[in-house]
Protein backbone atom coordinates (compact mmCIF):
# COMPACT_ATOMS: atom_id res chain seq x y z
CA UNK A 1 0.00 0.00 0.00
CA UNK A 2 1.00 3.64 -0.16
CA UNK A 3 1.36 6.05 2.73
CA UNK A 4 -1.85 6.54 4.65
CA UNK A 5 -3.68 9.84 4.53
CA UNK A 6 -4.84 9.39 8.13
CA UNK A 7 -3.51 12.55 9.84
CA UNK A 8 -4.20 11.17 13.30
CA UNK A 9 -1.84 8.27 12.68
CA UNK A 10 0.72 10.36 10.78
CA UNK A 11 0.96 12.93 13.58
CA UNK A 12 2.17 10.44 16.21
CA UNK A 13 5.76 9.66 17.22
CA UNK A 14 6.52 6.02 16.38
CA UNK A 15 9.34 3.71 17.42
CA UNK A 16 10.94 2.21 14.30
CA UNK A 17 14.02 0.35 15.57
CA UNK A 18 16.36 -0.14 18.48
CA UNK A 19 19.31 2.17 19.07
CA UNK A 20 21.60 -0.81 19.65
CA UNK A 21 20.77 -2.40 16.30
CA UNK A 22 21.09 0.77 14.24
CA UNK A 23 24.11 2.28 15.98
CA UNK A 24 26.11 -0.83 15.09
CA UNK A 25 25.93 0.33 11.48
CA UNK A 26 22.86 -1.62 10.44
CA UNK A 27 20.70 0.75 8.47
CA UNK A 28 17.11 -0.33 8.90
CA UNK A 29 14.97 -0.48 5.79
CA UNK A 30 11.44 -0.67 7.04
CA UNK A 31 7.99 0.79 6.61
CA UNK A 32 5.78 3.13 8.57
CA UNK A 33 2.08 3.71 7.87
CA UNK A 34 2.48 2.41 4.31
CA UNK A 35 5.59 4.52 3.59
CA UNK A 36 8.93 2.77 2.98
CA UNK A 37 11.60 4.41 5.14
CA UNK A 38 15.29 4.17 6.01
CA UNK A 39 16.46 4.59 9.60
CA UNK A 40 20.14 5.19 10.31
CA UNK A 41 22.54 6.83 12.73
CA UNK A 42 24.74 9.75 11.78
CA UNK A 43 27.20 9.41 14.65
CA UNK A 44 24.95 9.75 17.67
CA UNK A 45 22.16 11.38 15.71
CA UNK A 46 19.29 9.22 14.50
CA UNK A 47 17.90 10.08 11.07
CA UNK A 48 14.94 8.91 9.03
CA UNK A 49 14.36 9.29 5.31
CA UNK A 50 11.61 8.25 2.98
CA UNK A 51 12.68 5.42 0.70
CA UNK A 52 11.34 6.16 -2.75
CA UNK A 53 9.89 3.54 -5.05
CA UNK A 54 12.80 4.00 -7.45
CA UNK A 55 15.27 3.22 -4.63
CA UNK A 56 16.29 6.84 -4.11
CA UNK A 57 16.43 8.58 -0.76
CA UNK A 58 13.59 11.02 -0.26
CA UNK A 59 12.39 13.55 2.28
CA UNK A 60 13.97 13.53 5.75
CA UNK A 61 11.71 13.51 8.80
CA UNK A 62 12.39 14.19 12.49
CA UNK A 63 13.94 11.39 14.53
CA UNK A 64 15.10 11.03 18.13
CA UNK A 65 16.55 8.36 20.39
CA UNK A 66 14.50 7.56 23.47
CA UNK A 67 14.11 4.54 25.78
CA UNK A 68 16.55 2.47 23.74
CA UNK A 69 14.60 3.01 20.53
CA UNK A 70 14.62 5.38 17.54
CA UNK A 71 11.40 7.40 17.30
CA UNK A 72 10.22 9.21 14.24
CA UNK A 73 7.13 10.72 12.63
CA UNK A 74 5.81 11.32 9.13
CA UNK A 75 3.56 14.18 10.29
CA UNK A 76 3.48 17.00 12.79
CA UNK A 77 3.11 15.55 16.27
CA UNK A 78 0.83 17.37 18.66
CA UNK A 79 2.54 15.80 21.67
CA UNK A 80 5.91 14.39 22.62
CA UNK A 81 6.49 10.66 23.15
CA UNK A 82 5.33 9.51 26.57
CA UNK A 83 7.27 10.52 29.67
CA UNK A 84 8.59 7.60 31.74
CA UNK A 85 10.57 9.07 34.65
CA UNK A 86 11.37 5.55 35.86
CA UNK A 87 14.06 5.38 33.17
CA UNK A 88 16.10 7.80 35.28
CA UNK A 89 15.83 5.74 38.48
CA UNK A 90 18.91 3.96 39.80
CA UNK A 91 19.08 0.19 39.82
CA UNK A 92 16.72 -0.43 36.94
CA UNK A 93 17.65 -2.60 33.97
CA UNK A 94 16.40 -1.79 30.52
CA UNK A 95 15.76 -4.94 28.52
CA UNK A 96 15.23 -4.28 24.84
CA UNK A 97 13.54 -7.45 23.61
CA UNK A 98 13.84 -6.74 19.87
CA UNK A 99 11.23 -6.27 17.18
CA UNK A 100 8.91 -9.05 16.11
CA UNK A 101 6.63 -8.90 13.09
CA UNK A 102 2.93 -9.60 13.51
CA UNK A 103 0.40 -9.69 10.67
CA UNK A 104 -2.30 -7.84 12.57
CA UNK A 105 -3.59 -4.33 13.12
CA UNK A 106 -1.57 -2.27 15.61
CA UNK A 107 -4.80 -1.49 17.43
CA UNK A 108 -5.57 -5.19 17.88
CA UNK A 109 -2.09 -5.67 19.34
CA UNK A 110 -2.51 -2.82 21.82
CA UNK A 111 -5.98 -3.99 22.80
CA UNK A 112 -4.72 -7.53 23.40
CA UNK A 113 -1.97 -6.11 25.61
CA UNK A 114 -4.62 -4.46 27.78
CA UNK A 115 -6.66 -7.63 28.17
CA UNK A 116 -6.21 -9.64 31.36
CA UNK A 117 -9.02 -12.11 30.64
CA UNK A 118 -6.86 -14.14 28.25
CA UNK A 119 -3.99 -14.73 30.71
CA UNK A 120 -5.06 -18.17 32.03
CA UNK A 121 -5.87 -19.50 28.56
CA UNK A 122 -3.02 -18.16 26.43
CA UNK A 123 -0.25 -17.62 28.99
CA UNK A 124 -1.03 -20.71 31.04
CA UNK A 125 1.33 -21.27 33.94
CA UNK A 126 2.96 -17.86 33.55
CA UNK A 127 0.50 -14.95 33.67
CA UNK A 128 -2.51 -17.00 34.74
CA UNK A 129 -3.81 -20.49 35.38
CA UNK A 130 -7.20 -22.11 35.45
CA UNK A 131 -9.40 -22.26 37.47
CA UNK A 132 -8.57 -18.69 38.58
CA UNK A 133 -9.96 -16.91 35.54
CA UNK A 134 -12.06 -14.04 36.92
CA UNK A 135 -10.89 -10.49 36.21
CA UNK A 136 -11.35 -8.37 39.33
CA UNK A 137 -12.90 -4.90 39.11
CA UNK A 138 -10.56 -2.07 38.15
CA UNK A 139 -10.78 1.62 37.36
CA UNK A 140 -10.52 3.26 33.96
CA UNK A 141 -10.04 6.91 33.10
CA UNK A 142 -8.77 9.33 30.47
CA UNK A 143 -6.02 11.43 32.05
CA UNK A 144 -5.77 15.07 31.05
CA UNK A 145 -3.85 17.01 29.93
CA UNK A 146 -1.70 14.03 28.92
CA UNK A 147 -4.59 12.58 26.88
CA UNK A 148 -3.80 9.04 27.99
CA UNK A 149 -5.96 6.01 28.74
CA UNK A 150 -5.28 4.50 32.17
CA UNK A 151 -6.59 1.37 33.85
CA UNK A 152 -5.64 1.17 37.52
CA UNK A 153 -6.17 -1.08 40.54
CA UNK A 154 -6.02 -4.15 38.31
CA UNK A 155 -5.03 -7.42 39.96
CA UNK A 156 -4.55 -10.98 38.79
CA UNK A 157 -3.15 -14.18 40.29
CA UNK A 158 -0.04 -15.18 38.35
CA UNK A 159 1.91 -18.45 38.65
CA UNK A 160 5.08 -16.81 37.30
CA UNK A 161 4.61 -13.06 37.11
CA UNK A 162 8.18 -12.24 36.07
CA UNK A 163 11.45 -13.91 35.16
CA UNK A 164 12.54 -13.23 38.76
CA UNK A 165 9.44 -14.79 40.37
CA UNK A 166 9.88 -18.10 42.22
CA UNK A 167 6.25 -18.57 43.22
CA UNK A 168 2.83 -17.36 42.25
CA UNK A 169 1.72 -13.93 43.36
CA UNK A 170 -1.28 -11.66 43.05
CA UNK A 171 0.15 -9.05 40.70
CA UNK A 172 -1.11 -5.49 40.82
CA UNK A 173 -1.25 -3.84 37.43
CA UNK A 174 -1.69 -0.39 35.95
CA UNK A 175 -2.08 0.01 32.22
CA UNK A 176 -1.28 3.17 30.35
CA UNK A 177 -1.97 3.94 26.68
CA UNK A 178 -0.17 7.08 25.61
CA UNK A 179 -0.81 6.93 21.87
CA UNK A 180 -2.90 4.63 19.69
CA UNK A 181 0.29 2.60 19.15
CA UNK A 182 2.14 2.85 22.47
CA UNK A 183 1.24 1.17 25.74
CA UNK A 184 3.01 0.39 28.99
CA UNK A 185 2.04 -1.67 31.98
CA UNK A 186 3.21 -1.15 35.52
CA UNK A 187 3.32 -4.37 37.46
CA UNK A 188 4.16 -5.46 41.00
CA UNK A 189 7.88 -6.15 41.16
CA UNK A 190 8.46 -9.62 42.72
CA UNK A 191 11.86 -8.53 44.08
CA UNK A 192 11.44 -5.04 45.61
CA UNK A 193 8.36 -4.46 47.72
CA UNK A 194 6.27 -1.46 46.70
CA UNK A 195 8.05 -1.02 43.37
CA UNK A 196 6.69 -1.39 39.86
CA UNK A 197 8.30 -3.16 36.94
CA UNK A 198 7.52 -1.65 33.54
CA UNK A 199 6.72 -3.68 30.44
CA UNK A 200 5.81 -1.87 27.27
CA UNK A 201 5.19 -2.24 23.58
CA UNK A 202 5.92 0.37 20.95
CA UNK A 203 3.95 -0.85 17.96
CA UNK A 204 5.28 0.24 14.57
CA UNK A 205 2.35 0.03 12.14
CA UNK A 206 3.90 -0.84 8.78
CA UNK A 207 0.58 -1.38 7.02
CA UNK A 208 -3.00 -1.54 8.25
CA UNK A 209 -2.60 -5.21 9.13
CA UNK A 210 1.16 -5.65 9.62
CA UNK A 211 3.33 -4.32 12.41
CA UNK A 212 6.74 -4.61 13.97
CA UNK A 213 6.30 -4.73 17.71
CA UNK A 214 9.16 -3.32 19.79
CA UNK A 215 9.02 -4.65 23.33
CA UNK A 216 10.95 -3.48 26.36
CA UNK A 217 11.09 -4.19 30.07
CA UNK A 218 12.44 -1.87 32.74
CA UNK A 219 12.87 -4.03 35.79
CA UNK A 220 14.38 -4.18 39.24
CA UNK A 221 16.04 -7.57 38.89
CA UNK A 222 19.72 -8.07 39.59
CA UNK A 223 19.80 -11.84 39.32
CA UNK A 224 18.18 -12.87 36.04
CA UNK A 225 20.46 -12.96 33.01
CA UNK A 226 19.62 -10.84 29.99
CA UNK A 227 18.75 -14.06 28.14
CA UNK A 228 16.34 -15.09 30.93
CA UNK A 229 14.58 -11.74 30.71
CA UNK A 230 14.38 -11.66 26.92
CA UNK A 231 13.14 -15.27 26.73
CA UNK A 232 10.49 -14.57 29.35
CA UNK A 233 9.05 -11.66 27.41
CA UNK A 234 9.38 -13.20 23.95
CA UNK A 235 7.65 -16.38 25.09
CA UNK A 236 4.66 -14.39 26.30
CA UNK A 237 4.56 -12.23 23.21
CA UNK A 238 4.75 -15.15 20.79
CA UNK A 239 1.96 -16.95 22.61
CA UNK A 240 -0.24 -14.06 21.49
CA UNK A 241 1.06 -13.80 17.93
CA UNK A 242 -0.80 -16.63 16.23
CA UNK A 243 -4.02 -15.60 17.95
CA UNK A 244 -3.60 -11.96 16.90
CA UNK A 245 -2.97 -13.02 13.31
CA UNK A 246 -6.26 -14.88 13.16
CA UNK A 247 -8.63 -12.26 14.55
CA UNK A 248 -11.67 -11.40 12.46
CA UNK A 249 -12.15 -8.77 11.20
CA UNK A 250 -8.43 -7.87 11.00
CA UNK A 251 -9.15 -4.18 11.66
CA UNK A 252 -10.33 -3.04 15.08
CA UNK A 253 -14.07 -2.23 15.02
CA UNK A 254 -14.75 1.17 16.60
CA UNK A 255 -18.50 1.34 16.00
CA UNK A 256 -20.26 1.40 19.40
CA UNK A 257 -22.67 -1.21 18.03
CA UNK A 258 -19.77 -3.67 17.82
CA UNK A 259 -19.01 -3.45 21.52
CA UNK A 260 -20.15 -6.35 23.60
CA UNK A 261 -20.10 -4.81 27.04
CA UNK A 262 -18.72 -7.05 29.70
CA UNK A 263 -17.06 -5.56 32.73
CA UNK A 264 -13.62 -7.05 32.14
CA UNK A 265 -13.51 -5.28 28.81
CA UNK A 266 -13.65 -1.81 30.37
CA UNK A 267 -10.15 -0.83 29.28
CA UNK A 268 -10.78 -2.12 25.77
CA UNK A 269 -14.04 -0.15 25.49
CA UNK A 270 -12.39 3.03 26.71
CA UNK A 271 -9.46 2.53 24.33
CA UNK A 272 -11.84 2.09 21.38
CA UNK A 273 -13.89 5.13 22.36
CA UNK A 274 -10.72 7.21 22.74
CA UNK A 275 -9.58 6.14 19.25
CA UNK A 276 -13.03 6.94 17.83
CA UNK A 277 -12.98 10.43 19.36
CA UNK A 278 -9.57 11.06 17.80
CA UNK A 279 -11.00 10.16 14.41
CA UNK A 280 -8.36 7.49 13.79
CA UNK A 281 -9.07 5.25 10.81
CA UNK A 282 -5.73 3.47 10.16
CA UNK A 283 -5.98 -0.14 11.30
CA UNK A 284 -9.68 0.08 12.08
CA UNK A 285 -12.50 -2.00 10.67
CA UNK A 286 -14.75 0.15 8.48
CA UNK A 287 -18.18 -1.32 7.87
CA UNK A 288 -18.39 0.50 4.52
CA UNK A 289 -15.50 -1.60 3.20
CA UNK A 290 -13.19 1.37 2.56
CA UNK A 291 -9.58 0.17 2.51
CA UNK A 292 -10.09 -2.17 5.43
CA UNK A 293 -7.19 -3.82 7.07
CA UNK A 294 -6.80 -7.14 5.31
Amino acid at each position, binding site marked *: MTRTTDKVALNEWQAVGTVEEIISGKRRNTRLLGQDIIVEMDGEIPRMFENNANGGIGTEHPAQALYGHIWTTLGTPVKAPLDMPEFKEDGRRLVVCGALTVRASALRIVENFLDMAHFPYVHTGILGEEPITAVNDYKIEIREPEDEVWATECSFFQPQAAASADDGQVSQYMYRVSSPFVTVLYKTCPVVEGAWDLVGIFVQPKDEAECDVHTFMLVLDETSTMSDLV*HFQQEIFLQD*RSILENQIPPGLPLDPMDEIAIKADGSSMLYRRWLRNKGLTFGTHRGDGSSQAA
Partner: protein
Amino acid sequence: MMQLYDYVLSGSCYKVRLFLSVIGQDYEKVPVDYYPGGEHKTPTFLQINPLGQIPVLVDDDLILRDAQAILVYLAGRYDANRSWYPEDPRLQGEIAMWLSFASNEIMNSSAARLHDMLFYDFDIDKVRAAAHAAFRVLDDHLTDREIMGKQWIVGNHPTIADIACFPYVALSGDGGISLDDYHAVRRWISRVKQIPGFVVMPGIHHN
Protein backbone atom coordinates in the same frame (compact mmCIF):
# COMPACT_ATOMS: atom_id res chain seq x y z
CA MET B 1 22.78 -32.39 35.22
CA MET B 2 22.31 -32.49 31.49
CA GLN B 3 22.24 -29.00 29.92
CA LEU B 4 20.32 -27.78 26.89
CA TYR B 5 21.43 -24.56 25.21
CA ASP B 6 17.99 -23.31 24.39
CA TYR B 7 16.04 -20.50 22.74
CA VAL B 8 12.40 -20.29 23.67
CA LEU B 9 11.16 -19.45 20.15
CA SER B 10 13.27 -22.06 18.35
CA GLY B 11 11.35 -25.00 16.91
CA SER B 12 14.59 -26.99 16.79
CA CYS B 13 15.18 -26.48 20.52
CA TYR B 14 11.54 -27.38 21.05
CA LYS B 15 12.16 -30.77 19.39
CA VAL B 16 14.53 -31.54 22.25
CA ARG B 17 12.39 -29.97 25.00
CA LEU B 18 9.38 -31.92 23.77
CA PHE B 19 11.27 -35.21 23.70
CA LEU B 20 12.86 -34.69 27.12
CA SER B 21 9.39 -34.04 28.51
CA VAL B 22 7.92 -37.12 26.83
CA ILE B 23 10.62 -39.42 28.24
CA GLY B 24 10.52 -37.64 31.61
CA GLN B 25 14.22 -36.74 31.65
CA ASP B 26 15.36 -33.87 33.87
CA TYR B 27 17.68 -31.25 32.42
CA GLU B 28 18.79 -27.69 32.88
CA LYS B 29 18.07 -25.00 30.31
CA VAL B 30 20.82 -22.56 29.39
CA PRO B 31 18.97 -19.68 27.68
CA VAL B 32 20.77 -18.34 24.61
CA ASP B 33 19.94 -14.76 23.58
CA TYR B 34 19.46 -15.76 19.93
CA TYR B 35 17.38 -12.70 19.09
CA PRO B 36 18.01 -9.81 19.38
CA GLY B 37 21.36 -10.58 21.06
CA GLY B 38 22.81 -12.93 18.43
CA GLU B 39 24.59 -14.80 21.23
CA HIS B 40 24.86 -17.96 19.10
CA LYS B 41 27.37 -16.16 16.87
CA THR B 42 29.61 -14.96 19.71
CA PRO B 43 33.13 -16.44 20.18
CA THR B 44 32.09 -17.98 23.51
CA PHE B 45 29.19 -19.84 21.96
CA LEU B 46 31.17 -20.82 18.85
CA GLN B 47 33.48 -22.77 21.17
CA ILE B 48 30.46 -24.88 22.11
CA ASN B 49 29.17 -25.17 18.55
CA PRO B 50 31.42 -23.90 15.75
CA LEU B 51 28.39 -23.88 13.44
CA GLY B 52 26.77 -21.19 15.61
CA GLN B 53 23.48 -23.05 15.86
CA ILE B 54 21.13 -24.14 18.59
CA PRO B 55 20.21 -26.47 20.21
CA VAL B 56 23.29 -27.95 21.83
CA LEU B 57 23.10 -30.70 24.45
CA VAL B 58 25.83 -31.19 27.01
CA ASP B 59 25.76 -34.47 28.94
CA ASP B 60 28.88 -35.11 31.04
CA ASP B 61 31.74 -34.77 28.56
CA LEU B 62 29.54 -35.21 25.50
CA ILE B 63 28.69 -32.08 23.49
CA LEU B 64 26.10 -32.67 20.79
CA ARG B 65 24.78 -30.21 18.24
CA ASP B 66 21.87 -30.74 15.82
CA ALA B 67 18.40 -31.55 17.12
CA GLN B 68 18.23 -34.82 15.17
CA ALA B 69 21.54 -36.06 16.56
CA ILE B 70 20.40 -35.12 20.05
CA LEU B 71 17.15 -37.06 19.64
CA VAL B 72 19.06 -40.17 18.51
CA TYR B 73 21.34 -39.94 21.52
CA LEU B 74 18.59 -39.28 24.08
CA ALA B 75 16.39 -42.07 22.73
CA GLY B 76 19.27 -44.55 22.72
CA ARG B 77 20.58 -43.60 26.12
CA TYR B 78 17.53 -42.71 28.22
CA ASP B 79 14.53 -44.56 26.77
CA ALA B 80 14.85 -47.94 28.53
CA ASN B 81 12.17 -49.51 26.31
CA ARG B 82 13.90 -48.41 23.11
CA SER B 83 10.48 -47.61 21.67
CA TRP B 84 11.40 -44.13 20.38
CA TYR B 85 14.44 -45.36 18.44
CA PRO B 86 13.98 -49.10 18.02
CA GLU B 87 16.95 -51.39 17.44
CA ASP B 88 15.46 -52.89 14.26
CA PRO B 89 17.83 -51.80 11.41
CA ARG B 90 14.98 -51.36 8.97
CA LEU B 91 13.15 -48.99 11.30
CA GLN B 92 16.40 -47.18 12.03
CA GLY B 93 16.91 -46.63 8.32
CA GLU B 94 13.41 -45.26 7.92
CA ILE B 95 13.83 -43.04 10.96
CA ALA B 96 17.12 -41.66 9.61
CA MET B 97 15.36 -40.86 6.35
CA TRP B 98 12.70 -38.80 8.13
CA LEU B 99 15.22 -37.15 10.47
CA SER B 100 17.01 -35.95 7.38
CA PHE B 101 13.71 -34.73 5.93
CA ALA B 102 13.08 -32.84 9.18
CA SER B 103 16.45 -31.11 9.02
CA ASN B 104 16.30 -30.31 5.29
CA GLU B 105 12.97 -30.02 3.42
CA ILE B 106 10.82 -29.15 6.45
CA MET B 107 13.25 -26.38 7.44
CA ASN B 108 11.80 -24.30 4.60
CA SER B 109 8.91 -23.73 6.99
CA SER B 110 11.41 -22.47 9.57
CA ALA B 111 12.91 -20.13 6.97
CA ALA B 112 9.48 -18.69 6.17
CA ARG B 113 8.88 -18.15 9.88
CA LEU B 114 12.26 -16.43 10.38
CA HIS B 115 11.47 -14.21 7.41
CA ASP B 116 7.99 -13.27 8.56
CA MET B 117 8.78 -12.87 12.25
CA LEU B 118 12.45 -11.97 12.70
CA PHE B 119 13.41 -10.15 9.47
CA TYR B 120 15.59 -12.88 7.91
CA ASP B 121 16.43 -12.25 4.29
CA PHE B 122 14.92 -15.26 2.51
CA ASP B 123 13.05 -15.40 -0.80
CA ILE B 124 9.72 -15.85 0.91
CA ASP B 125 7.78 -17.17 -2.11
CA LYS B 126 10.47 -19.73 -2.79
CA VAL B 127 10.73 -21.06 0.76
CA ARG B 128 6.95 -21.20 1.17
CA ALA B 129 6.64 -23.16 -2.09
CA ALA B 130 9.39 -25.54 -0.93
CA ALA B 131 7.65 -25.99 2.43
CA HIS B 132 4.39 -26.79 0.64
CA ALA B 133 6.22 -29.38 -1.48
CA ALA B 134 7.60 -30.97 1.69
CA PHE B 135 4.20 -30.98 3.39
CA ARG B 136 2.70 -32.64 0.30
CA VAL B 137 5.27 -35.45 0.60
CA LEU B 138 4.52 -35.85 4.30
CA ASP B 139 0.76 -35.73 3.75
CA ASP B 140 0.92 -38.39 1.03
CA HIS B 141 3.05 -40.58 3.29
CA LEU B 142 0.71 -40.19 6.26
CA THR B 143 -2.31 -40.88 4.05
CA ASP B 144 -0.70 -44.13 2.87
CA ARG B 145 0.09 -45.01 6.47
CA GLU B 146 -3.51 -44.42 7.52
CA ILE B 147 -4.73 -46.71 4.73
CA MET B 148 -2.43 -49.37 6.24
CA GLY B 149 -3.97 -48.67 9.64
CA LYS B 150 -0.86 -46.90 10.95
CA GLN B 151 -0.87 -43.66 12.90
CA TRP B 152 2.78 -42.65 12.93
CA ILE B 153 5.49 -41.80 10.41
CA VAL B 154 7.41 -45.02 11.04
CA GLY B 155 6.47 -48.28 12.78
CA ASN B 156 3.57 -48.99 15.08
CA HIS B 157 4.11 -46.29 17.69
CA PRO B 158 5.56 -42.77 17.84
CA THR B 159 9.30 -42.47 17.26
CA ILE B 160 11.83 -39.67 17.16
CA ALA B 161 10.87 -39.28 13.48
CA ASP B 162 7.53 -37.88 14.64
CA ILE B 163 9.20 -35.63 17.21
CA ALA B 164 11.70 -34.28 14.65
CA CYS B 165 9.11 -33.55 11.97
CA PHE B 166 6.44 -32.09 14.24
CA PRO B 167 7.62 -28.59 15.31
CA TYR B 168 8.07 -26.80 12.00
CA VAL B 169 4.99 -28.44 10.54
CA ALA B 170 2.90 -27.30 13.49
CA LEU B 171 4.52 -23.82 13.40
CA SER B 172 3.91 -23.31 9.67
CA GLY B 173 1.22 -20.67 10.28
CA ASP B 174 3.91 -18.41 11.77
CA GLY B 175 5.47 -18.30 8.31
CA GLY B 176 2.19 -17.73 6.52
CA ILE B 177 1.86 -21.35 5.36
CA SER B 178 -1.60 -22.87 5.69
CA LEU B 179 -2.10 -26.56 6.46
CA ASP B 180 -5.67 -26.52 5.15
CA ASP B 181 -4.86 -28.82 2.23
CA TYR B 182 -2.99 -31.40 4.32
CA HIS B 183 -5.68 -33.41 6.05
CA ALA B 184 -3.56 -36.37 7.08
CA VAL B 185 -0.91 -34.02 8.44
CA ARG B 186 -3.52 -32.23 10.54
CA ARG B 187 -4.83 -35.50 11.96
CA TRP B 188 -1.23 -36.53 12.76
CA ILE B 189 -0.63 -33.18 14.54
CA SER B 190 -3.67 -33.91 16.73
CA ARG B 191 -2.27 -37.35 17.56
CA VAL B 192 1.17 -35.97 18.48
CA LYS B 193 -0.54 -33.55 20.87
CA GLN B 194 -2.06 -36.54 22.69
CA ILE B 195 1.31 -38.18 23.41
CA PRO B 196 1.73 -38.35 27.21
CA GLY B 197 4.15 -35.66 28.35
CA PHE B 198 3.40 -33.41 25.35
CA VAL B 199 4.34 -29.77 26.00
CA VAL B 200 3.59 -26.64 23.98
CA MET B 201 5.76 -23.76 22.81
CA PRO B 202 4.72 -20.26 21.73
CA GLY B 203 2.80 -20.70 18.47
CA ILE B 204 1.78 -24.30 19.23
CA HIS B 205 -1.35 -24.75 21.30
CA HIS B 206 -2.75 -27.78 23.08
CA ASN B 207 -5.73 -27.87 20.74
